[in-house]
């Protein structure tokens, strides 16, 4: 576990002490501020219209952060060193997941200024704010695991970022298909799409179905990353 934490710490410092990391963080917080203004145009002190786009943007942010995990290491020629080091593959995957997720969560933590601003002007319902952030934490972990699997499968950071974004966008798009379907196909499409599982967090509920969905996605990503790394070793 110590090895995993060392890898995570190195990735975390490596991100926030680069122009890319600084720019991505500042840009994400600025976009969340614009999203808040758009949400408040409904003249209601409710933040579901702000959290909703944030879930979507988090997918894109994670795609940018996880591209560095393995693909960037391969481009820099350090992946071989990492894979042949006396560290178990599980520790490598755990370290990379903790590093990527912690980076994204540190950026998301900066958006807390938005709910705080709303509370200075009105009395929003606190429940959806708590569950909104709980949902974002789960989504970050799940999306990061998917991003790691894509990053491990390619040697190009750009392809990794585009691949992760494509996978996540594809999953969101499946939810749009559900509107034109009925019966079991509709249920399946709804269950596959992250959008379906985000709604509860926006309304202030923590549902077993939604939590299991994101944890399951994280587990799938971790297993896929492990399998890809083993094949490359």
């Amino acid at each position, binding site marked *: 576990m110590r090895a995993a934490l060392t890898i995570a710490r190195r990735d975390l410092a490596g991100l*926030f*002490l*680069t*122009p890319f*990391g*600084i720019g991505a*963080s*500042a*840009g994400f*917080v*600025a976009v*969340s*501020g*614009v999203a*808040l*203004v758009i949400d*408040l*145009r*409904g*003249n*209601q*002190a*409710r933040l*579901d*219209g702000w959290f909703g786009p944030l879930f979507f943007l988090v997918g894109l942010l994670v795609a940018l952060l996880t591209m560095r995990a393995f693909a960037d290491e391969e481009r820099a020629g350090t992946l071989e060193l990492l894979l042949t080091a006396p560290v178990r593959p599980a520790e490598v995957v755990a370290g990379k997941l903790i590093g990527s997720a912690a980076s994204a969560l540190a950026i998301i933590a*900066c958006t807390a*200024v*938005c709910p705080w*601003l*709303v509370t200075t*002007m*009105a009395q*929003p*319902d*606190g*429940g*959806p704010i708590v*569950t909104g952030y709980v949902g974002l934490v789960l989504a970050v972990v799940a999306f990061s695991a998917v991003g790691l699997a894509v990053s491990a499968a390619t040697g190009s950071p750009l392809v990794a970022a585009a691949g992760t974004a494509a996978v996540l966008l594809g999953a969101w798009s499946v939810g749009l298909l559900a509107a034109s379907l009925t019966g079991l196909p509709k249920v399946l499409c709804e*269950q596959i799409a992250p959008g379906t599982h985000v*709604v*509860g967090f*926006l*309304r*202030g*509920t*923590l*549902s*077993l*179905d939604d*939590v*299991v*969905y994101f944890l*399951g996605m994280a*587990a*799938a990503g971790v*297993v*896929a990353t492990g*399998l890809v790394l*083993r*094949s490359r070793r």
Partner: protein
Amino acid sequence: MRRVIVAVVALVVLLGANVVAYRNDRQIDLSAGSRFTLSPETRSLAKAVRSELKVTAFASPKGGVATDARFLLSRYHQVNRRITFSVVDPDAHPTQAARLGITQYATVVATYQGRRVDAADVDELEISTAILRLLRGKTRNACFVTGHGEPSLDDTSPDGMSQLAAALRHNAYEPRAVDLTKGDVPADCAFVAVAGPTDPLVQREVDAINGYASRAGRVFVMATPASNADPNPLLAPWGVRFAGGLVIDPDRSQNLDFDNVIAESFPSANPVTRGVSRLQLPAGGGLLVDAPKDRPGLTVSRLAESSARAFVETRPDIETTFDALDIPGPVLLATASDDSHVEQQATGEKIVRSRVIAVGDAAWATNRYLGNLSNARFLLNAVNWLAEEEQLVATTSRPANDRPLPLTPERQRRVLIVSVGVVPSLIVAAGVAGLSLRRRRRGRGA
């Protein structure tokens, strides 16, 4: 091979966990008042639906009402897959809204086995009550006394009451004219309405209505000022007196039309005023509470009042300024009388309950005004209270989710300065400081 087995096992476990969670979903509701958790009564009601029940909510996509509606209705669907729903923007689909006669946002239409019941709001209590009335499977008669110059229920002109009739039909009541000059009130009437007569009722009719009301009957009286009709023989036994005249309200009226009163004061906790924010009562007369002291079971609720500056002008055909002959405000505009007592019957003790609603005006329920403000909501609440259908589902009271925050230019500027200017700038400053510190350390190391 081993990798393939691991992948397949992982996939099966993943799918299995999701299916189990989907079928046995549990939730913690942290929203204010747990408003997205269905009460046990609603859950058992939803389970009782045996064939397809379709719920259509007409809601504006702005402000989150539509998304809340979708989420709440999905809870009903989770309990029973036979309950299907759709949320429709009436502005985007005007023909669908027109076909179903929707005139206001947040109206819910529920249909089941060819019957339809409307709910006046997208909340659990309203929707569950509508479902329960659908499941009852019968339409009740709303009996209207006619023949005294009342607005016609078939008249689609602004002065007619065709919209009132439509609203009743959409709530499982069938409006029906009754002639009380030849007989008693039919036993299958859910209530009797005397809606805006301009000529007096004959004594035979008054006796029939009073006899019916005293035997656990339900009566809805809408008086007509400046007419020959006197509703007092119908109201007096229930502790209410029609003062006549014309209510003048300089503080709460439409534009400068001081007798076109807008009621905003609803002092009682009676369910008739639930969800009613403002009522438009044009050219109405005032009411007075005059409850006899020897009737302990009789309670009279003050449903709607004018502002304190209002008064009842007793000579509106001569002048409309307050003088010694007038009745000072606040003026009572609508009342609800409930007379309950226990009667010894052959089968044991039984509670006998009579209910009478009085409004000092009938124009509010005509086509011209019924769609204004909360008039339609008041009508349906009143009808449901008379028919004792106001508390079909005993759900706990939920706090309103209306949290107004007008986005003024100053507030917008503040949000943008802090979230788009200050915080990103601090991040950039901290990052640049960290980078230069790191370079300086590396420089020293070299």
